[in-house]
């Protein structure tokens, strides 16, 4: 009884709302959930609780992953998929940035585009695939278009909101320091919104990864999604899971890269957090 009360007190000391966690403990906690996840998976498969036909065990998955990479040229598929995501995403970002900033800064431009963009944002990118195949064939243009449709409208809207939320007192301060309307956009609105725009890019890039696989499930001859469709025909759940995990890992790495880049580019935005 005494012990359980002490434990409750200790838990209270560790789990205080919004109290930060030490960097070492953060990594340990993060890794331990991965370990737990794999452990549950291993018990379920090696223990015979799940039929091998439906779920491969971790070791088989790793082995066939190695076979995929070493013998079946899966590295090329990964490269293709990464290229498609980045290609479609970069095109979307390059067009969304200026339009989003203009919409955030100039209300008539926002009034013109915002209703349509809000509408287009809800059009499911995957539903466009049959149309895009009709328009662009089954080549790379179709894959890039899916990513573009999936990320462009989201980006525009979120960037516009961020820029439009610039603190009004900063805008007024800039005007009293002699800023013109044009330099207000370049020297106040854009630099002030930049860290949040980077966060938006990071988030939407994550969504782009889900669109690329859908695009590759239909009418593709390479890419991670294509490998997954092929494996489905062979009931190779080990390969499917390997493919999914590879996507997850690439996502994790690009996410961490983006976060690191953001911290490095905008040290001021990290202060006082």
């Amino acid at each position, binding site marked *: 009884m005494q012990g359980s009360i002490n434990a409750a007190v200790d838990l209270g000391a560790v789990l205080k709302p919004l109290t930060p966690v030490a960097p070492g403990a953060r990594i340990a906690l993060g890794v331990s959930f991965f370990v737990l996840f794999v452990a549950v998976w291993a018990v379920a498969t090696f223990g015979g609780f799940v039929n091998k036909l439906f779920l491969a065990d971790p070791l088989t998955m790793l082995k066939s992953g190695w076979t995929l990479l070493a013998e079946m040229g899966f590295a090329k598929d990964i490269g293709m998929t990464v290229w498609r995501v980045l290609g479609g995403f970069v095109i979307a970002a390059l067009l969304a940035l200026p339009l989003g900033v203009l919409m955030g800064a100039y209300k008539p431009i926002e009034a013109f585009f915002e209703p349509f963009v809000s509408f287009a944002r809800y059009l499911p990118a995957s539903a466009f695939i049959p149309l895009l195949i009709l328009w662009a064939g089954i080549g790379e243009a179709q894959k890039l278009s899916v990513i573009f449709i999936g990320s462009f409208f989201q980006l525009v809207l979120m960037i516009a909101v961020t820029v439009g939320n610039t603190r009004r007192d900063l805008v007024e301060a800039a005007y*009293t320091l002699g800023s013109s309307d044009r330099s207000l956009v370049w020297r106040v609105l854009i630099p002030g919104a930049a860290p949040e725009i980077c966060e938006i890019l990071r988030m939407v890039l994550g969504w782009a990864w889900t669109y690329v696989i859908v695009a590759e499930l239909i009418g593709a001859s390479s890419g991670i999604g294509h490998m997954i469709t092929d494996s489905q025909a062979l009931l190779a759940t080990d390969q499917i899971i390997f493919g999914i995990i590879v996507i997850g890992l690439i996502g994790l790495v690009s996410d961490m890269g983006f976060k690191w880049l953001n911290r490095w580019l905008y040290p*001021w*935005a990290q202060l006082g957090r």
Partner: protein
Amino acid sequence: MNNFLSIRAVSRSFASTHGGKPTLALQSTDLDVAENDFITILGPSGCGKSTLLRIVAGLDRQTSGEVKLDGKRIEGPGADRGMVFQSYTLFPWLTVRENVCFGLNERGMARSQQVEIAQSFIHKVGLNGFENHFPKQLSGGMQQRTALARALANGPRMLLMDEPFGALDHQTRELMQELLLGIWEAERKTVLFVTHDIDEAVFMGSRVTVMSARPGRIKLDREVPIAHPRSYAVKTTPAFIALKAELTEQVRTEVLAAQAAMA
């Protein structure tokens, strides 16, 4: 008196949000400010003193009347009227030095000259050694000192201050008052300073004006009979206390009127 800044019959009313009658924030107000003068404006909260200042800054438009600076109508904000706000308005993505350079950069001044001017004002507000700090790394008082340096470095013809020390603790506020007064005594910029702190108004101002409860107008205008340079010690002299007593009475009447109007 040469009317460097002339405010003529300026009023401001705000449209009502629910289709009712518009609210009159500022009734027809006249004020003349001579060059190199330091005018403080006192009044209860909501009396329109900030509105008046924002109209002079060009950040708000009067409903009627006219504001002229050196004979020229004020149509919008400009670098000739520097402003220090009550809220912390340093650009968080710029260091102290870059914040102070902001206005100079807007004018396309050569970089070396910008840095030289910025450095001299950073020195004047006592922030040597903090040039490369970001605003979030500074205390409130240091942020307002940077904001003051930023406004002054731009070489404005007049300085508009909207309760700039209102968010600071009492001790920091008193030090800031001495700092600003010291700079004013050296540079003699024209200053319009809004506050609700009577001590501050008397200590800083060469003229103190009191505004009435909403709708505001200037109901009292007094020279401060205390010579410059002033040290903090003048706050206990009979002349200071006498003026403070009179202003306290006047402001109190208006605060009570404002409360009665709300009830």
